[in-house]
């Protein structure tokens, strides 16, 4: 039962991808239908897998459930077995990938109507969904790496979907190069584990690594994985690729660059936390990465004028919260925030997509007063925005408070206050964004219409999710705690959680900061003195704090050295033969020395 479900969750979208591309671009209706059908069915499989896994780990095993959630297909040779593990972390992330994936595809039916090359679009989204499910379900580090790279490639293709647009192509290549750089860290860790332990199994690694691998090797693996996670989740110092990835069609941004792929880094850190927790300096490094990213990105969100870039910076910032949560040992709270964030950020992105589709611009300075023309979108967007700001009883409130609480209990005090400050910044930029788009007077003549039916369904379901997912916190806790015995997960049911949060002073402090942020966002027009004081740091934030300058420097240096090296490629036959002989000589010497 479980093996079949896992394979279906991964292979069904892939089969859909194949079918969509076979269908051909002359039958757009059939393509829309195929894509929605295959993604929705894989979503159903993933949810069944989730529900199936829940009782196994709670100790109640119905007769129809396979007790062993682990299975492997022997492949022989160097790759190890293709093994899969349906544990708490995996099944819930697979469910997020497939369910939000199917909602994003449903949204695309309206958003991409009339576009050419739908086959390419849907095929890569479906391919991505399958790969993402594989990434979180596999129990083999090498296959983790393969799936990791497949998601990066799909992300690249979809960012550059409008390949007539040089900005889209440049954004795609930037994302590809930076995430590939991180992939090297992952591969390095996996190969290191293989040379010491003789297996790629993640379970074995987590169990034995702290004792079996020498301290130096383990810290190489730990920091290699941290680099991989930072590059994938757009964390400091790799955060620059995500805003440029916003050239992708908006449903792609919602799915890949908000709800799923960028979470892979957080997943990696959470998955391997027990193995690396003892490495000196690792937890501190994770905390530092999270805090720096959360604050930098929040500042940049404050000054950005492109609606999707604000959301991208906000995603980077919220991912920083999750990374910080892992650094302080709050695996559970960071995973709850991951769940909340996927739902409300997908909602915000799809809402932004509805706006952009309707007014055909992403510049918030040209918007304003759109709420009257798009009432449904406004309501959905505001629900998402309130969840992002952390207003009570929406899912973002619960998870953000949980992260801050873990930070207060187990983390350094200074990091906690910085993150609290970040929560205030989040409230300010959220308010600014909503006000600039939906309220006030229209700043330019824009022809706007409300979202179509498919868009409304997707937005409505996600808004419902943003209001309700916190109710499942308790079940989610049992799922994680039951499957991840080594992660030392402390979870609480909703009632205990509510009791704990509403009696703690820290919660009211955080709420006060959020309220202050909202107030500042509301009164920002009147605080001209304050804003003029902050003009210089705002300029830095607009220049992305110099990171773009570093990126340009690196790419110029690579270009120059490649130019220099190209002199070695003369194309002369005799020189090439000399090169071959030299290589042969080196190999001979190495063989002689080796024996």
């Amino acid at each position, binding site marked *: 039962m479980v093996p079949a479900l896992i394979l279906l969750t991964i292979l069904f979208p892939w089969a859909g991808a194949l079918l969509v591309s076979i269908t051909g671009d002359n039958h757009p209706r059939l393509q829309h239908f195929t894509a929605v059908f295959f993604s929705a069915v894989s979503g159903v499989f993933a949810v069944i897998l989730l529900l199936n896994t829940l009782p196994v780990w709670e100790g109640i095993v119905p007769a129809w459930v396979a007790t062993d959630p682990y299975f492997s297909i022997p492949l022989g040779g160097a790759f190890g077995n293709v093994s899969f593990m349906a544990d708490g972390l995996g099944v819930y992330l697979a469910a997020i990938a497939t369910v939000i994936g199917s909602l994003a595809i449903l949204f695309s039916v309206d958003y991409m109507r009339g576009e050419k090359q739908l086959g390419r679009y849907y095929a890569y989204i479906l391919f991505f969904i399958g790969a993402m499910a594989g990434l979180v379900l596999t129990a083999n580090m090498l296959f983790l790496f393969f799936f990791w790279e497949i998601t990066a490639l799909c992300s690249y293709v979809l960012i550059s979907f409008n390949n007539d647009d040089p900005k889209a192509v440049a954004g795609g290549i930037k994302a590809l190069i930076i995430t590939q750089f991180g992939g090297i860290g992952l591969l390095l860790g996996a190969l290191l584990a293989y040379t010491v332990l003789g297996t790629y199994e993640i379970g074995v690694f987590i169990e034995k690594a702290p004792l079996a691998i020498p301290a130096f090797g383990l810290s190489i693996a730990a920091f290699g994985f941290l680099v991989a996670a930072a590059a994938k989740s757009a964390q400091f110092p790799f955060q620059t690729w995500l805003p440029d990835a916003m050239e992708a069609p908006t449903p792609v941004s919602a799915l890949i660059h908000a709800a799923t792929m960028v979470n892979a880094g957080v997943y990696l850190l959470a998955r391997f936390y027990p193995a690396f927790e003892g490495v000196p300096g690792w937890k501190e490094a994770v905390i530092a990465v999270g805090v720096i990213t959360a604050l930098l990105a929040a500042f940049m969100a404050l000054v950005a004028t492109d609606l999707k870039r604000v959301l991208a910076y906000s995603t980077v910032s919220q991912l920083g919260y999750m990374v910080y949560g892992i650094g302080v040992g709050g695996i559970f709270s960071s995973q709850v925030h991951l769940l909340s964030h996927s739902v409300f950020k997908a909602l915000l992105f799809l809402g932004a997509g509805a706006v952009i589709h309707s007014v055909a611009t992403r510049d918030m300075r040209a918007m304003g007063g759109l709420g009257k023309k798009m009432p449904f979108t406004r309501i959905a967007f505001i629900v998402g925005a309130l969840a992002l700001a952390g207003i009570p009883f929406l899912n973002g409130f619960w998870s953000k408070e949980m992260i801050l609480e873990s930070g207060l209990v187990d983390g350094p005090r200074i990091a906690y206050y910085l993150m609290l400050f970040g929560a205030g910044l989040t409230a300010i930029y959220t308010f600014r964004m909503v006000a600039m788009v939906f309220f006030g007077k229209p700043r330019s003549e824009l022809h706007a219409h409300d979202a179509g039916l498919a868009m409304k369904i997707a937005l409505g379901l996600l808004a419902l999710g943003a209001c309700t997912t916190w109710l499942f916190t308790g079940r989610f806790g049992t799922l994680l705690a039951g499957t991840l015995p080594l992660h030392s997960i402390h979870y609480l049911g909703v009632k205990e959680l509510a009791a704990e949060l509403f009696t703690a002073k820290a919660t009211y402090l955080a709420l006060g900061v959020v309220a202050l942020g909202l107030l500042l966002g509301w009164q920002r027009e009147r605080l001209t003195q304050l804003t003029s004081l902050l003009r210089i740091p705002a300029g830095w934030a607009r220049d992305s704090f110099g990171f773009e300058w570093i990126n340009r420097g690196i790419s110029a240096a690579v270009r120059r050295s490649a130019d220099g090296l*190209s*002199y070695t*490629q*003369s*194309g*002369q*036959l*005799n020189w090439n*033969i*000399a090169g071959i*002989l030299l290589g042969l000589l080196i190999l001979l010497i190495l063989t002689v020395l080796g024996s």
Partner: protein
Amino acid sequence: MTLDPLILVAAGVCLLAGVGLYGLLASRNLIKIIVAMQILTKAAVLALVAAGAASGKINLSQSLAITVIVVDTVVAAVGLALGVQVRKRFGSLDAANLASLRR
């Protein structure tokens, strides 16, 4: 003083390989390059036969030598045919003319 025949053979292999490699490195004429390649492969065949004699696995070494000869003939045939085409297109047999990666 008697010379071990194997040493004589090894010296022959070295000589042939040296001539072949020198030809590959130094000549720009395509025909000469192909001839040099032939000499280099003859060194390999000689080495195979000698190795078979030394290790006693004569059958294996001879069958490998025959395979090398067959492959070598094919390589020579294709190489000469390419040489004819190059002569037709470029008007000379100079390998330097073939370099399209020019700066």
